[in-house]
């Protein structure tokens, strides 16, 4: 972990999609060792929140302050569809300067898939591959967008264990998921609680 004391702070955050205000006055503060579960129905703004926290989009109002490098796992893996999985992962290992990628590949059971082109992988297999790339980055802040969707029961267990391990090691995890998660000490909030009241919808 690069940053000695990672933190992720949202202050008075508001985000829109198109003309619609999805949530506003959203504030939280996560320090090293904290996990946070964001719940909400489809379209409530979980992905929008995560992309704003990652700094990929500019929030409509409010600010995001983060200390420490950040890793994002969403439905878009960033892995080249035409390359065999091993080579697609190797690109990111090289960019991230990861010298021992085999651990993550073994834990996530990707060994037998390394020769298979990424486009032939199932949704769950792609998700496992993206997780391996995230693990190999060794970053303190994890933003996970629906990390459990498309995974079988056994892999769900592994992913939750990995989140526990990450948080236990002083990392931060913010998980947007509509599935239940069991991580000790995890806080949670529903994004609908920050949805604007109907009369202030076009504020």
């Amino acid at each position, binding site marked *: 972990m690069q940053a000695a004391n990672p933190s992720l702070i949202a202050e008075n955050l508001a985000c829109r999609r198109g003309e619609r205000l999805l949530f506003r006055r959203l504030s939280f503060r996560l320090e090293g060792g904290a996990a946070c579960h964001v719940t909400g129905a489809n379209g409530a703004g979980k992905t929008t929140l995560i992309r704003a926290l990652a700094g990929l989009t*500019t929030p409509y109002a409010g600010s995001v302050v983060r200390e420490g490098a950040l*890793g994002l796992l969403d439905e878009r893996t*960033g*892995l*080249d569809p035409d390359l065999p999985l091993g080579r697609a992962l190797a690109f990111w290992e090289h960019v*991230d300067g990861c010298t021992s990628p085999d651990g993550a590949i073994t834990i996530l059971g990707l060994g037998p898939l390394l020769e298979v082109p990424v486009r032939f992988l199932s949704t769950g297999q792609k998700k496992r591959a993206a997780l391996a790339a995230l693990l190999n980055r060794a970053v303190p802040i994890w933003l996970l967008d629906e990390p459990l969707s498309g995974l079988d029961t056994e892999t769900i267990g592994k992913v939750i264990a990995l989140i526990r391990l990450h948080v236990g090691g002083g990392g931060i995890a913010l998980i947007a998921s509509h599935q239940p998660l069991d991580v000790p000490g995890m806080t949670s909030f529903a994004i609908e609680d920050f949805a604007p009241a109907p009369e202030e919808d076009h504020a």
Partner: protein
Amino acid sequence: MIAALLRRDLAQFFPFTGSGAALPVVFFVAVAMLFPFAVGPDANVLAKTGGGVVWIAALLAAILPLEKLVARDIALGFFDQLRLRGMAEEAMMAVRLLAHWLSFGPPLLLATFPAAALLKIEGESFQILLLGLLAGTPGLAAIGLMIAALTASLRAGAALSGLLLIPLALPILIFGAGALARQDQVSLGFVGAISLGLVALAPFAAGAAIRAAREN
């Protein structure tokens, strides 16, 4: 990180290694082969009009892999992942511009030899054509990249790219193909200057475009 990205981009675009990326050059030669059949084998007519056809073919070859240039990697989340690792969009686009040019520019210059033979372009005309393409292809690559990035997130992107192409490509064609018509090497300097201007502008325009594409 830059070197790794350049290697990856080249592997994506390069003929024979990438997936069907030899298409622009095949297209270029095909146009040169078909043109004499369309206008007849009169060597004078061919030599007079052939240069312009080569330029148009080069321009279209530069924008052929349009969808692959930017839109695919946006959908893949590839640029997002690079951004999270601290790379600026401008740097990603500068690398992509270089990879795009390397993948079609030099092969196209080589293909100009058979194309010129088919179109009866010889002697000084051939020299001007080759030098013009050498100076002009980086600019054509920049045009392709800018259009690809600007239209990547639009549903009617393909229709718009045709409209965008015309004003961007005009100056380079006027001086590039015009140099041939006038047998005048001085125009080639203008081609080079326009080309350099486009190359300098493209990473910024394309970088801003892919940032804007995230917002919707």
